[in-house]
């Protein structure tokens, strides 16, 4: 009896979860379907669920006249560079915050946290003016610098939390062996913290890949526009090519979702590592 009831409850929960999941994922299914419709068919009233005529013409427009390959490359350059810089710098700083007691430490901690929660919309205007002045406006370098404002404090704080979990006995043993603090960082902490680096790195990469506001305000030409900005600009056109936008949305999302499925364990650590501790 008990067993039967348990199976019932489990089945019921599974059905509920499936329904919810269907609801949650339907929008994604819908853009995928629209992206395979010819433009005229996307704009019929009422909309048909399945394409009557499957076509990849929207994707051809995207990679042909719309030049989306350039934006993908731009996005990759910006996201990879800012994340690499942030992991190098952030890891170095995180080690200092995790392993030493020093006078200014509470202030540095507070400073990193303030940076982590700083309002981006406030920074957009001075960044725009600065980049014009430095002649960096509309370059990928401007975006790399701008993205450091959120990737660097994030990675520093997350890696500090990760380093805190590595036992200090290892450091102490190394000091007895005559290692300097710098050698300890390179030879002991860095190799041990690889999973932490990967988790925070991927998470920061996704944030950079997804960023829109700085990208929108600091770029203007094809040479530096990122994928989200290019997608957004399709929306503003007089005659909106909805199938093409949907194809763009699919193209922008797919790599992220693929990365996510392969690295979900690390990524979920990146998502939850900071929050659960509190």
């Amino acid at each position: 009896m008990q067993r039967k009831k348990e199976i019932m409850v489990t089945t019921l929960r599974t059905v509920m979860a499936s329904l919810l999941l269907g609801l949650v994922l339907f929008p994604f299914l819908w853009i995928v379907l629209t992206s395979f419709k010819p433009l005229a068919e996307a704009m019929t009233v009422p909309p048909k669920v399945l394409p009557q005529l499957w076509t990849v013409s929207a994707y051809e427009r995207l990679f042909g006249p719309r030049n989306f390959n350039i934006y993908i490359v731009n996005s990759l350059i910006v996201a990879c560079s800012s994340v690499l810089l942030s992991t190098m710098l952030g890891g170095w700083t995180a080690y200092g915050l995790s392993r030493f007691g020093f006078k200014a430490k509470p202030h540095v901690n507070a400073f990193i946290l303030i940076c982590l929660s700083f309002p981006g919309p406030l920074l957009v205007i001075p960044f725009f003016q600065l980049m014009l002045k430095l002649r960096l406006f509309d370059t990928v370098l401007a975006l790399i610098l701008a993205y450091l404002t959120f990737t660097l404090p994030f990675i520093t704080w997350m890696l500090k939390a990760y380093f805190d979990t590595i036992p200090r006995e290892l450091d102490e043993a190394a000091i007895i062996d005559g290692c300097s603090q710098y050698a300890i960082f390179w030879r002991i902490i860095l190799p041990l913290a690889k999973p932490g680096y990967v988790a925070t790195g991927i998470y920061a990469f996704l944030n950079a890949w997804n960023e829109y506001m700085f990208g929108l305000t600091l770029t203007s030409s094809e040479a530096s526009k990122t994928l989200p900005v290019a997608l957004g600009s399709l929306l503003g056109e007089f005659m909106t090519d909805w199938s093409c936008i949907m194809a763009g949305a699919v193209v922008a999302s797919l790599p992220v979702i693929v990365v996510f499925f392969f690295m979900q364990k690390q990524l979920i650590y990146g998502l939850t590592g900071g929050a659960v501790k509190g």
Partner: protein
Amino acid sequence: MVKNQVHFSLSSPKAAPYVFVMPAVLILAALIIYPTVLALQNSLQTANGFGFDSYFKIFRDSLVWQTLLNTCIFTVISVIGHYLLGLAIALLTNDRIYGKSFFRVCFLIPWMFPAVVPGIIWRWMLHGQFGIVNSFLQHLGLIDSYIPWLASPNTALIMVILANIWRGFPLYVATLLAGLQTIPRAMYDAAEVDGANWFSTFWYVTLPQLKGVSIVMLLTDTIWQFNNFTMVQTMTMGGPGHSSEVLPTLIYKNAFNYNDYALASALGILLLLVMLIPGFIYVSHSLKSDKA
């Protein structure tokens, strides 16, 4: 000893922490503090020198107050929606369910999208003519004629908020699930022995145990949603009229459409001031739990 003093060396124990900490601190100061000072300076710029003109202007402007109210509505409803939906799904997928890890992973998908994509998706689904939502609701007999959800001042803001809830709840699923897994099994066994029903177990065991995670998430999310530019910009650009305007989009408009950097910067400083409250709580809370 003497040798150490002669070259104040980078390997001296006193210097080492600063060698580690300084690079990031300096870079962040250059990237965040310096621009903030510039913004402050901008906001005080007037036609004839320096003054508080921009601030007087924004405080007398009813649009700014409307926008501030919209921003608060957007933030509060989004955060509450994120939390409730996230908690419900976390509880649902935490135990006794087939395909547990499948569900856990798939529910996170909306959060993976590049920030413009949710805006694009929902703009398309809510389209007044070709949108699937209208056609669906009509099939169900809930509406007689198609509603231009995003082009009508009565519904624009609420639709943006709903789309924003769809995008943001997965992060709560992940963090609350992680939190649920730290609750000792023994506590539930004890509750069962005491004959507690589902609700009181949830209320007296689960919720209190999730307090730590919840506080951090709610604070961080409040800060994020206050700064959320992308969702509104991609769905309505603050319109129609200013019915879905939030501070970040108003800042953008003033700076990049009207080229009024002084006013936009003053709005930016206003945003910073509003954010000081959740920001201060967030920083002090994180510092406290960091020590513990």
